[in-house]
């Protein structure tokens, strides 16, 4: 238990570094960087301790789920609390976030300080708050708290993407990032409110005291309602007039809106490429460990709720598969280093969604982990190149950097091999598992689920080829061949604070896949699928029985409630090998195509051969155009028209009433002529009229 009681410190330390950097950063060396480095370093250490505790090395292999703060006690209403949920999933995510954030802080020493930048306290304050928000989101034990930190993550992305506010691009990109994700969060918020209204709680997992459940988690309540028909604790069903499963699907899809926004899935992915306006280390943080990862993590966090809804699963898988392919095609034609990486991020998160949707919970978490490492590496490597190139990001101005910056090259290559999915680098193992899960569940699932999975799988498979191609197009253009500009001939050298993080991540990108070599484990029977075991839990006892967040439980739900089955037409080993071989061959084919097109010493642009398709791809399928049109071509003119209506009609009536009274007043004033005989006439007429009136009413006549 010891480590768990210190868990809030993991979140609070970066928050303190935010305050320190914000208020005292200008009086500190390097603008408060040291505060951030030590805070995230300490958080990393505590996270390691927590992970060891969860694993049972220093404790009892239990989970931890406690309330720590009462936000609203509630008089006659539901109590709203903050709490910490620690299980293998959150422990792993804590490690990822703190590690990446720590390395990004160190890297920033080299990246930011070399520019004579004045806003450093603001920068490190932003990094600290960003890390704290994400960590708060990761440990959240209920949906409301998760939503709140999710929003804070959005704020931080706004502040950091718009860091260089004196230029025109970054503020616009920051606005877009917040607005597009806010649109997704709108649905998420409805989902949060709906779930709390329906279940009376937003808890992800039950809270126990002495073995007894004192507070239920909503996935558990939903499961009981569907499996056992126990709907007495479920509200709202009469209000909406749906059966439990349909209503839960609606709620799940609403929450998914936030996921699609933050994890940059189609159609809310448009903010992410623009977000490249932010400093490169921030991009690394956003893409690898914080904001974009938040969406996928949320689905994994409440997987018990999605695993009971086949419709939601199918939607997740299809959105993910489609996004994986869709984004990969756009990455093929980009000319700027960070743009290629941006679209690859969208594509890779598509794979994670595909895995989650198709019942590959471990595969998704695995890919989340490996991607965090290799994408952070690639962004930091790109940052190193950008330093060297005096902030020129166009790959056509580079070339030949291989010999001039060897550390960057070899680490970047390691990350690229991982991204492309070449054995034995990290990405191969995780991407292979994603596709394998999609395939076998596609072949084995009942109803519409199977075909949906197979379609999503096909998308994912095609994207493998694209990934291999665009990754190595990027590598060849940047590092190989002859330098194409003077700057590329004589790049600026980078310091230890850049090379250090790159080396750490470079080694990890090559090796982290070994935590879950599921195919090897299955072939040899050796128990080396560590991540699988980490997330599995026991069937009874331990954290998984306590919290119901273990893979055992999810697999049962997927199989029994959602109808996700397994189909292996070539036998277990045969299907496994065929799937792995297929994705590897495609990845290598992509790599080789890139090599043949761009591997020469004087590469030329081949994208023109795509003809009209290139225009479409360069314009990102006109996704930006229509979304900008929705804002400036539709909503704004509508607002202007409403303003005219308000001024003209609504206020016009008000002014009209006053004009009529003034006009009427002026007219009636004319009676007051000042001539006594007129008054006498009026008086007499009035008296006569009154008498007549009284006479008629009183019945005198």
């Amino acid at each position, binding site marked *: 238990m010891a480590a768990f009681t210190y868990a809030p410190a993991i979140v609070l330390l970066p928050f303190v570094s935010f305050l320190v950097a914000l208020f005292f950063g200008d009086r500190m060396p390097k603008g408060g960087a040291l505060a951030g480095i030590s805070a995230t370093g300490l958080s990393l250490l505590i996270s390691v301790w927590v992970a060891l505790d969860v694993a049972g090395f220093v404790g009892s292999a239990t989970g931890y789920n406690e309330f720590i703060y009462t936000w609203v006690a509630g008089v*006659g209403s539901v109590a709203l609390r903050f709490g910490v949920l620690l299980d293998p999933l959150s422990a792993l995510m804590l490690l990822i976030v703190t590690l990446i954030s720590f390395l990004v802080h160190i890297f920033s020493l080299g990246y930011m300080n070399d520019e004579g930048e004045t806003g450093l306290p603001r920068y490190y304050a932003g990094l600290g708050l960003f890390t704290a928000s994400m960590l708060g989101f990761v440990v959240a034990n209920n949906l409301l708290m998760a939503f709140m930190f999710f929003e*804070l993550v959005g704020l931080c992305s706004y502040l950091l993407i718009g860091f260089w*506010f*004196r230029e025109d691009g970054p503020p616009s990109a920051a606005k877009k990032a917040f607005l597009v994700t806010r649109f997704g969060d709108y649905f998420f*918020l409805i989902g949060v409110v709906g779930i709390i209204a329906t279940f009376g709680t937003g808890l992800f997992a039950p809270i126990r005291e002495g073995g007894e459940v004192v507070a239920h988690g909503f996935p558990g309540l939903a499961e009981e309602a569907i499996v056992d028909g126990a709907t007495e604790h479920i509200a709202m069903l009469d209000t909406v007039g749906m059966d439990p499963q349909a209503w839960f699907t609606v709620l799940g899809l609403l929450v998914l809106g936030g996921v699609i926004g933050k994890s940059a899935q189609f159609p809310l992915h448009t903010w992410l490429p623009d977000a490249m306006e932010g400093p490169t280390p921030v991009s690394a943080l956003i893409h690898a460990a914080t904001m974009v990862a938040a969406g996928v993590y949320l689905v994994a966090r409440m997987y018990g709720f999605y695993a009971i809804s086949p419709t939601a699963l199918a939607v997740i898988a299809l959105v993910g598969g489609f996004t994986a392919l869709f984004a990969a095609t756009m990455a093929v034609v980009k000319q700027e280093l960070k743009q290629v990486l941006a679209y690859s991020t969208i594509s890779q998160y598509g794979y994670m969604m595909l895995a989650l949707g198709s019942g590959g919970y471990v595969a998704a978490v695995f890919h989340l982990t490996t991607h965090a490492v290799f994408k952070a590496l690639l962004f930091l490597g790109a940052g190193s190149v950008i330093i060297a190139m005096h902030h020129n990001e166009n790959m056509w101005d580079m070339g030949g950097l291989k010999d001039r910056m060897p550390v960057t090259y070899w680490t970047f290559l390691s990350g690229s091999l991982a991204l492309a999915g070449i054995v034995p680098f990290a990405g191969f193992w995780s991407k292979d598992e994603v596709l394998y899960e999609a395939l076998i569940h596609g072949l084995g699932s009942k109803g519409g689920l199977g075909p949906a999975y197979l379609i999503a799988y096909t998308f994912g498979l095609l994207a493998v080829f694209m990934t291999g191609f665009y990754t190595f197009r990027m590598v060849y253009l940047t590092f190989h061949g002859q330098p194409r500009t003077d700057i590329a001939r004589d790049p600026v050298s980078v310091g230890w604070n850049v090379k250090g993080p790159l080396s750490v991540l470079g080694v990890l990108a090559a090796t982290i896949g070994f935590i879950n070599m599921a195919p090897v484990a299955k072939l040899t029977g050796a128990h080396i699928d560590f991540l699988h075991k980490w997330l599995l839990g026991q069937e009874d006892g331990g954290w998984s029985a306590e919290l119901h967040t273990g893979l055992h439980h999810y697999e049962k739900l997927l199989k029994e409630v959602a109808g996700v089955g397994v189909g292996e037409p070539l036998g277990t080993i045969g299907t496994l090998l065929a799937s792995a071989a297929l994705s590897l061959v495609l990845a290598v084919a992509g790599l080789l195509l890139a090599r043949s097109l761009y591997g020469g010493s004087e590469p030329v642009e081949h994208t023109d051969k795509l003809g009209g398709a290139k225009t479409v791809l360069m314009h990102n399928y006109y996704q930006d155009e229509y979304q900008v049109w929705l804002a400036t071509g539709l909503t704004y003119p509508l607002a202007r028209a*409403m303003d005219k209506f308000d001024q003209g009609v*609504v206020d016009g009536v008000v002014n009209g009433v006053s004009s009529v009274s003034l006009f009427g007043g002026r007219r009636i004033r004319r009676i007051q002529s000042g001539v006594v005989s007129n008054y006498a006439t009026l008086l007499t007429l009035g008296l006569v009229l009154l008498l007549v009136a009284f006479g008629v009413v009183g019945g005198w006549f």
Partner: protein
Amino acid sequence: MLVETLLLVTLLGAGIVMLAPDRVAGKLAAGISVIPVALTSYMYYVFLTDYNGVGNALLSPGEVAFGTQIPWLNLGEYTVQYYVGLDGVSMPLLALTTILTTLAIISAWTPIDERQSQFYGLMLLMELSLIGVFTALDFFLWFVFWEGVLIPMYFLIGIWGGPRRKYAAIKLFVYTNVASLVMFAGLFAMVFATDVTTLSLPAMATAFRAATELPVYAGYSLATISFVLMFIGFAVKVPVFPLHTWLPDAHVEAPTPVSVMLAGVLLKMGTYALLRFNFTMLEQTARALAVPLAIVGVVSVIYGAMLALAQRDLKRIVAYSSISSMGYVILGLVAFTPLGMGGATFQMVAHGLISGLMFMTVGVIYNTTHTRMVGDMSGLADRMPWTVGIFVAAAFGYMGLPLMAGFAAEFFIFQGAFNAATLGSSAPVLTSLAMFGIVIVAGYLLWAMQRTLFGGFKLETDYEIGPAAFHDVAPLAVLLLLVIALGVAPDISLDMIQHAVAPLTGGGA
């Protein structure tokens, strides 16, 4: 005696400040206005420790905090009393009033440069009336204060306002006065139809709620007719679409400190009165009319937000967004749930702080740049970093950033309304529609910030621009801290509010 002290201090203070020379008036007024702040802080503390958990002032008058009840005069067959007291609804609003008054007075030091003693005297006079509105428990007394607020407001806008100040002041005065008349007619129809003998609010509440066999006109019960008349009367003050058009004009013409009071406190008089009269005294009617009323609220939310999107004047943007925020209050009130009604009242406080903060920040920018037009300036972040930092924080507060008061309030309302029995099966739909306001508000505030605060520095007026003075920024910082405090620990206010609305929502104690 505490409420009387408050009233006396502000009354005497107003007199003293009016007679003081101009150059000391601002400091003197600020000093005097600190006394009510200290007193209400003490009362708040006592309330939290001794009175927390007391019921509604109108429904369980025996439990009223800081109550005083003295017979005053007889109007025909009706007894009028000096009757004041507080409950969990009025206590936070009273605290809001005193705090905002002090901060608004400090924020006036820079922009108000003529006839200062009269300006600050009128500000204190307005505070007097506002304190009266939130503490009075007798209708006659309450109505005197209610109308009394308008008089200083009229002069504050009419004398110290912008170019069209006369139009704006008269519009405000006539519009809200006519509305009071409509409200008065509706209320007294009920008074005459029931057997009340004193005009105390609790007595009226008891009589109205117990009234049976009310006359029926044209198929509508008198309760319904009165409800609608009173709703219209109060809705002007809130304001609710389509009775809102006095608001943007008043805000644009009013000097910053007056805008702060107008948006921060005066609008809350409308929602406070709605809660006290319509939703407490005529609860059954309110429940029956919940769906149409919620629609009115939702339309206000979206309509106000869309209009804010169309504006170029920063003050108009905030003014229209107030209409949007007040729409949430209506939605929360009609829900008749602990979180809905509690959240609605919480939103009155939260919006008071946040809109005050927004107006003050815009005011600081205006004092320095002499323009409020988006497009006339850009890149202010470069020259006034702290002001811009607070602007960004305030704007995110307005957008409902978690751990700030606005999010808490809006979330409570959404949660409270989403499955409200009064709204039936339309509850989730109406609530979801209202929630879309959080997207539009982000749109117009982010867009306005992008164009004014960021980018290359540009200013199309002939003024030197530099960091703002300490006494300009300090009130902003205080408000921001309060907004964050209420966002992190909403139970500072929500708990007492929920206790006070519990008899209405049927929730337990």
